[in-house]
């Protein structure tokens, strides 16, 4: 009973002389003699915090039942699932999809209009080394930086007039992933999971492959105040595919052992339930244990990349070092999409942030991602999944047409490009315009809120009607903004 007798604290904070001491001094048994002479100061007996080796983020709450909150759908759906290829760091639009002849002409000259506030770049125009040409039958401009995506130009729908909030990564990454640059809000995938539920009875609706740990980390695929089940299950981290498995799906013990344990837990729970009578909490827990068991079986197959032919693996670049990780991620994304997962984010890792060495950095990132993305496009078409899958490609912002340092570009939320693809959008199409140098979004501007409204619309959801009441208010992904960009719909 000693435990209950031991009084804490309030009167402990005094040394033997009766003098008050700050808690960390007292509690470390430090300075009990009241003397702070040098030499007596070594702290003994204080165990510094141990740094545990990291586990990756939990799969917590990951499986929804297949029913979502929006039924029937608000509008006829044009796609059933989204694969968001998140180019974290911010790829340069003026070096990829937004061709600016005047930038080439005026390379090295001063920017002829004002910079936005809080920019480090000097207002001197910088032309990148990559050539642009018209591609395919559509004649869509794509640069040499992305040769494989360029080959698919007739399948791409480029929005060249994107703009967003947030001059720094944290805000802009929050905007693209959650629709908020400053407040804690559910991620796009969580909203989709909440609205549609999963297309597979035993798998989560929302999965993030290689999500970043920085710039908000889990917040960018989290559920915030939505039920926790809508948070993404994370596979790998920071652009790395890792083991490519759902955490905790398997324990240290062998599968037979786990099956036996699940069976024993079930029997114990039945006894508890028998004593309690009908009870939602106990029944829910029993149901969750069953689901976990089924999820283990379902995931074992879906996550097994060995079920893909060597030719398919090669097409995604899995056999090459440069493209392996992103190729594996794209291929898993296709397998998940096929199985019914609604919203899959594949992150490049925060690699596109070329404040310096634009050429080397962008070349490297393009090398890692371009071929797998093109393979994904071809694969979806070949498997008849093209029409009901929406691919979204882009970063949290673009990059400035003016130089930063000797050879870099700064962040540009004022104007940039994002690419959509799939049956829902116009193929080989470009929408909107930036100014002559690609700095500001100028015509047919599309704000990040508009893109979100459009993504929901494509999935059959009216962004103004998809709401969740929290803290006395009905929240939306698009807050009080958002316009469906009808002009890009096929």
């Amino acid at each position, binding site marked *: *009973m000693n*435990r*209950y*007798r031991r*009084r*804490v*604290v309030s009167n402990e*904070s005094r040394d033997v002389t009766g003098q008050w001491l*700050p*808690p*960390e001094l007292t509690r470390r048994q430090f300075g009990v003699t009241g003397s*702070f002479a040098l030499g007596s100061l070594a702290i003994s007996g204080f165990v510094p*915090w141990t*740094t*545990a080796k*990291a*586990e990756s983020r*939990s799969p*917590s709450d990951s*499986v929804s039942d297949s029913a979502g909150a929006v039924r029937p759908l608000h509008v006829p759906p044009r796609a059933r699932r989204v694969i968001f290829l998140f180019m974290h760091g911010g790829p340069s639009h003026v070096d990829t999809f937004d061709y600016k002849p005047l930038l080439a002409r005026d390379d090295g000259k001063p920017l002829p209009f004002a910079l936005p*506030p*809080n920019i480090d770049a000097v207002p001197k125009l910088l032309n990148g080394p990559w050539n642009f040409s018209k591609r395919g039958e559509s004649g869509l401009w794509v640069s040499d930086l992305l040769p494989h995506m360029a080959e698919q130009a007739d399948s791409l729908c480029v929005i060249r007039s994107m703009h967003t909030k947030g001059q720094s990564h*944290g805000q802009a990454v929050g905007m693209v992933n959650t629709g908020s640059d*400053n407040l*804690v809000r559910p991620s796009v995938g969580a909203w989709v999971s909440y609205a549609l539920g999963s297309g597979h009875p035993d798998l989560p609706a929302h999965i993030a492959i290689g999500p970043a*740990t*920085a*710039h*908000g*980390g889990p*917040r960018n695929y989290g559920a*915030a*105040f939505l*039920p*926790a*089940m809508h948070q993404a299950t994370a596979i790998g981290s920071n652009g790395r595919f890792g083991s490519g498995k*759902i955490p*905790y799906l398997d324990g240290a013990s062998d599968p037979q*052992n786990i099956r036996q*344990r699940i069976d*024993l*837990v079930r*029997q*114990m*729970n039945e*006894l508890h339930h028998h004593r*309690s009578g*009908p009870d939602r*909490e106990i029944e829910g*827990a*029993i149901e*969750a244990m069953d*689901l*976990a068991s089924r999820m283990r079986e379902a995931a074992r197959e879906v996550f097994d990349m060995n079920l893909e032919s060597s030719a398919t693996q090669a097409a995604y670049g899995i056999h090459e070092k440069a493209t392996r990780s992103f190729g594996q991620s794209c291929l898993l994304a296709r397998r998940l999409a096929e199985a019914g997962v609604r919203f899959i984010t594949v992150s490049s*890792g925060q690699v596109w942030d070329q404040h310096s060495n634009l050429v080397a950095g962008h070349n490297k990132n393009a090398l890692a991602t371009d071929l797998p993305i093109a393979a994904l496009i071809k694969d979806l078409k070949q498997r008849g999944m093209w029409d009901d899958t929406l691919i979204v490609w882009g970063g949290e912002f673009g990059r400035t047409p003016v130089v930063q340092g000797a050879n870099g570009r700064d962040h540009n939320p004022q104007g940039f490009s994002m690419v959509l693809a799939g049956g829902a959008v116009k193929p080989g199409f470009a929408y909107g315009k930036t100014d002559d140098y690609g700095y500001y*979004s100028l015509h047919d501007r599309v704000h990040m809120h508009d893109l979100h409204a459009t993504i929901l619309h494509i999935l059959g959801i009216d962004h103004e009607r998809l709401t969740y*009441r929290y*803290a*006395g*208010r009905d929240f939306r992904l698009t807050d009080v903004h958002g316009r469906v960009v009808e002009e890009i719909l096929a």
Partner: protein
Amino acid sequence: MPTSRHFLRYLSACLLALLCQATQTMASEPAESVEFFENRIRPVLVEHCYECHAADADEIGGSLLLDSSDAMLTGGDSGPAIQPGEVESSPLVLAIRYESTEMPPTGKLPDSVIRDFEEWIAAGATDPRDTPPAASVPREKIDIEEGRQFWAFQPLSFTEPEIEPYEGSRGPIDQFLGQRLQESGVSPNAQSSDELRLRRLAFDLTGLPPSIELQQRWMADPSWENWERIVDEMLDSQGFAEHWARHWMDVARYADSNGSDFNATFHEAWRYRDYLVRSFASDRPFDQMIRQQIAGDQLPFETDEQRHDNLVATTFLMLGTKMLSERDKTKLELDVVDEQIDTIGRAFLGLTLGCARCHDHKFDPVPTTDYYALAGIFKSTVTLKGESQRYVSTWNRVSLPTTEEHRAAVREYEAATKSLKSDIAEAEKSLKDAEAGTSDVQLGIVIDDTQATKTGTWKESTYTKGFIGKGYVHDDNSQKGKTTIQFSAEVPDDGKYEVRVAYSANTNRASKVPVTIETSDGTQTVTINQQKNDIAPFWTTLGTFEFSSSSPAVVTLSNRETNGYVIADAVQFLSADDLHKLNHPDQDDASKAKRARIEAAQSHLAALKTQLKELTAQKPPPLPQAMAPTDRATPKISDSPVHIRGEVNNHGQVVPRGFLQVCSSGEAAIPNPRGSGRLDLADWLTDPDHPLVARVFVNRVWMHLMGEGLVRTVDNFGERGERPSHPELLDYLATQFVRGGWHLKPLLRDIVNSAAYHRASDYNAASSDADPENRLWWRMHRRRLPAESIRDAMLAATGTLSRTPLFDPMKSHGVLVSGNDGNSTEGKITGIATPCRSIYLPIVRGFLSPMMTALDAADPDLLVGRRPTTNVPGQALVLLNAPEINQWANTTADRVMRDAEDFEARLNLVYQLCLQRLPTEDDKQLAKTFFTDDRQSPEAWQQWVAALFAGTEFRLLD
């Protein structure tokens, strides 16, 4: 309402106007003319503005109409849209210039159109539109007096329960609940089993399972006297203080790092946690805790201890997650203030004040002006201060009191360190001087870059250490072919000299730098590869050349056709004699002497460095400081304007600092704010007549013990929240709480000593039909244990749970808990395997323990008054497969096998350890079937414990 005829007329006017524009592009009408309006202004309004700002729009943006002259002058939320003659004071102009807000949102109008509007307003804004303003947009004004009629804003009313005490009632709580049960004809459940009641009490008060000794003591005497004794023991325990501190940490969105965009370490947050533990241990009055948390820095104090707690408590205001890298600091400041107001609103008032940032609260009687009355208080408070790196804000810190001895020790240490460091610098210089003698620098003739003749642009640099003179120059890898540097020397004698060039080598340097040497035999050209050097540390030989004393020896580096940075530091000319000296330093007496000097200097330096190392090992703890706010300097304290629609640059009227009108009996503005006004706010919150604060707090306490709040939306007492199930009971408890001096322990005692607290949670068909949600408390709610208790209970079962508090968990972390490059993993420190109580695990935002998250621990990004309880496969998987849980199961199984001999004793022990009860016949039967082969198998026992840990009974309080 305008008819569609009106609209058609606008439309035709618009078309006509466009036509006119097309045909008479260059016609210039005077800006004050009706034609100017019709041709230049009206078409733009129709095309770009009417969709949202005409009376027939679906939704009127900002309550502003632009479809008549009067409407424009009357304006909307932001006041009048135009001020005729005053271009710069016309919000419309600022909006279309994208300076205040951005209108139209679809895209900025062409500059020429914006100029038209400027000219039109400058000329008096002629507007012939005679349409009378549509029935003005209904702008519902909040009626404060009417708002006060809402139950939550009514004063507390103390009433005694009406019915006579009845059988089984143990006081007013049971009387109030009994009255409603009687009226509804619902019969309450009987008392729960003794075992369950003790388990319930122990987890509710201490967050820990009852020990086996306590289980035995209680089962030997399950009387009310013994119950009350055990309650008192628990309330006096350390476990109680830790558990209830954790409840408040949920509300305080406690974390040890910032999370968000820039995961800065909150090195000092633990002090606040520690303050909470000590406050709950000593039953510090809650009104005092509120005053300390809002304005501790302004409170009077008599002792250092009081001052310490006062300051540390204000960390409450600092703990929110912030976008520290937001470059627009005005916006960041407003966001931080908003987070503070929202937290205070929900934590203490149960009101969602954040709603009133952009518009009058849509449901509660909180106008935007009330929000900005509060915002003025927090804008006058320093929360953020300085930057930890460019654009990235950091927060205010305040020194904490400590002993004079501590200060003296730090002073002494700093002085000693400083003096040692200066000795070391001195010694290093002596060593360098001694070494200089052996350096080849002084041999031969050395021409530094500062003495050279340069053409083109050379940049001076000291970036790469190791150079001759004070630095070197480089060509910035630009202006190729336009930049040369010429080193010219006069050799003393005719003859051969070896020529060397000094530069710092690096892979970004040019690989072929052309160098010309003007010798007595004529000009020679060589190229050098600046990516490396021949002779350490920075020399490269060009070769040996003939020079004459009568004409200058000239070496010229150029950046012509180079492919990287070209560096020039110095050029050296070495005669045969110089080279001999250079290659045979030991043959020289002078060199020997230098060598001795060097050795002496080296050993002196080494000794000093050892001293510094020893001193550093004895470094006293740094002077304590708190993550805490202060008031701004007096001239910077001010009232805040309303920010219309929450926009940073869209200012409305200035509002005097103050409180919510609806919960203030008199004037809500502070007549003479003391400093920022936080102290006034603290006084207002803790006024015994405040209708919300005590109600909200006792309701939280009730929820923790009784499963649901009397108001189930514990953070929302407003219109959108639920109404209290037992308003008289809520007011009774709140009044008693305030009268009793805001002490938590008496309130807890009253609740856990009530008969209602002891009811079984069992299902009953009749009662369940009558009251399926159990709002009458006919039974105890079955509740999920908090994540911390589940983990602590597992550790308790192992017998290894440490009861030593841990402090300063983030000590080993730098400014950032994890890097921003996306490759950082050092943030992943959950310490989940440490056998401490879970309250002492660091809460690192972005790196929360997957186990705790799966078990529904509070998300520190949000204020969590009531934790959600989820039942999802992820949770089941963690319970089945998390390696730590498996380990704890194994340890518990080993303990059971060690501490009990036979099968039955082991089964009893494992149930007492895990479920705090003895096994039932059913349990025994299940065990018999499970342990068929080998009752001695450790693996089987491990499996059994692992299953108990993952089962429903372990994590539910029946």
